[in-house]
């Protein structure tokens, strides 16, 4: 399959079942909601060492938020409910509770729930107040700028993490420009985030390493500097490869997000230096979800 001069590899992205939640952070203005969200969802690129993968899903107008203030919706993904609960509490406790004027609310429903303000309320040292409004419990925790308002729980969703595609280009700058366009397109898809810095990864990995302590190591088959010595996957003329990783609330969201991203890359096409699109997988044995690039783009 060739689209706009870009060869689409006959391969698939291998993704995993994950646990996810959505939270809504509001503040007096969007700047401070973003500050809180950037801190809470920062250092959340990969579950390998960050505990969770997280990012801003979209910005919300005052009409869309529970307390009528501007805000942002963010998604957090982890491999287990226990780890997700731990990361959520830490990140909201250290980055939202601490941030001036903010409040935090559940952004989704779920069969199960995760503590949001449920444990953070103890920061109030006995001065916290509970309010039950329309069947939902909120905690009012006194802080130095007034009160931190936190909904007691948020929902738990069964989701998909680790969808990906690789952009193979003639130069690093051309690969990056295409990836920026892809990330912009994915950002417009509800229910999906690209958790890496700017949404783009340069350090794609393979399973295993020559060092016994490491479970993963650099994906040498796609490293242009190793073309001459390692078994390479790079076609002639490819000088740089970047990867987009996507986490999504549902399988359908993942399809939409990957298609939006790859369409954006293909739109730039061979004229913009894009040679191929490929994807990362582990032979299909580890991940429950397989996203075949050609099927998505068909």
């Amino acid at each position, binding site marked *: 399959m060739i689209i706009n001069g870009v060869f689409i590899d006959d391969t698939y992205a291998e993704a995993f079942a994950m646990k996810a939640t959505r939270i809504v952070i509001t503040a007096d203005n969007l700047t401070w909601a973003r500050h809180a969200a950037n801190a809470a969802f920062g250092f959340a690129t990969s579950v390998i060492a960050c505990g969770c993968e997280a990012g801003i899903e979209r910005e919300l107008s005052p009409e869309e938020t529970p307390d009528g*203030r501007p805000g942002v919706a963010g998604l957090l993904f982890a491999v287990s409910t226990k780890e997700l609960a731990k990361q959520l509490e830490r990140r909201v406790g250290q980055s939202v509770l601490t941030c001036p004027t903010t409040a935090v609310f559940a952004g989704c429903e779920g069969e199960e729930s995760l503590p949001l303000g449920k444990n953070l309320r103890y920061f109030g040292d006995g001065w916290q107040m*509970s309010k039950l409004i329309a069947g939902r419990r909120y905690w009012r925790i006194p802080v130095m700028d007034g009160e931190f308002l936190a909904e007691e729980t948020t929902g738990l969703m069964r989701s998909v993490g680790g969808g990906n595609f690789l952009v193979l280009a003639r130069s690093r700058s051309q690969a990056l420009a295409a990836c920026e366009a892809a990330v912009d397109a994915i950002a417009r898809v509800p229910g999906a985030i690209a958790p890496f810095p700017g949404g783009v990864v340069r350090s794609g990995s393979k399973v295993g390493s020559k060092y016994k302590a490491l479970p993963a190591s650099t994906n040498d088959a796609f490293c242009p500097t190793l073309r001459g010595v390692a078994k390479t996957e790079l076609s002639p003329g490819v000088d740089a490869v970047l990867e987009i990783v996507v986490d999504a609330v549902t399988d359908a969201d993942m399809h939409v997000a990957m298609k939006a991203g790859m369409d954006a890359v293909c739109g730039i096409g061979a004229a913009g230096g894009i040679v191929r699109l490929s994807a990362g997988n582990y032979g299909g044995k580890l991940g429950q979800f397989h996203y075949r690039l050609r099927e998505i783009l068909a």
Partner: protein
Amino acid sequence: MTTLSLRAVPNGRVDMTGVLPETLAGRRADDIGKQIIHLAGSPLMLGDLFEVDVDETDMLVIRTDSDRLDCLGKGMNTGSLRVEGPAGHYAAQGMRGGELDIRGDAGDGAANGMRGGLLRIRGDAGAWLGAALIGDRTGMAGGVVAVEGNAGDRLGDRMRRGLILVRGQAGDACGARLLAGTLVVAGGCGTQPGAGLRRGSLILGRRPEAIPPSFNDSGRVDLSYLGLLHRHAESFLPGLLPASTQAHRYMGDLAFGGKGEILVLA
């Protein structure tokens, strides 16, 4: 819709316990007419006092021009009951769900021991609205009460949970002995608001003549919680709360733990 129309002003107080949408649904008019109620403590059939009309919907309408019908909506769990006229005492007593809409005034003791559902009073409410059932330690413990007019004395006495909204004024000792929950009175209140308040929020649209001395001034505050409450209240009494989240906070009652608050809206 089942419609019960009061034939004449009864010569005593009528206990309407058991006359609910859930108990009358699916029954024929002659069967409903045989439902036992009590007039001045003596049993009689519903059909002796009311004309009964039945159609297919589950809504119950009671047409009355007398305020002697007590216990309307008592123990209601589900469905919709509209009272076209005044209600007597103890309306929505122990109510757990559904909606009771009183298109007139309500007597004393409405929503006593209420646990859930929605009570609308388009006119004025009497004393002890949302308070405890006689002998109970706690008052209203859930649901929403929305009053378009005024409320009498002891509004929300010993209230444990839930939300009471009053567009008009409240009498003396509103929010007295409040245990938790939220009480909003937009039009001001009488003396001793929040006396004995333990936790919970008494929110006043107008500054009372005096805040009880056992409340300490905590100054002007900005509470995002009020934004949340504003949105919720709009669905029951539009325009009741201002969009502003500014209020003056008094914490108390310090003679009873001091964990509650009176908020006077800015």
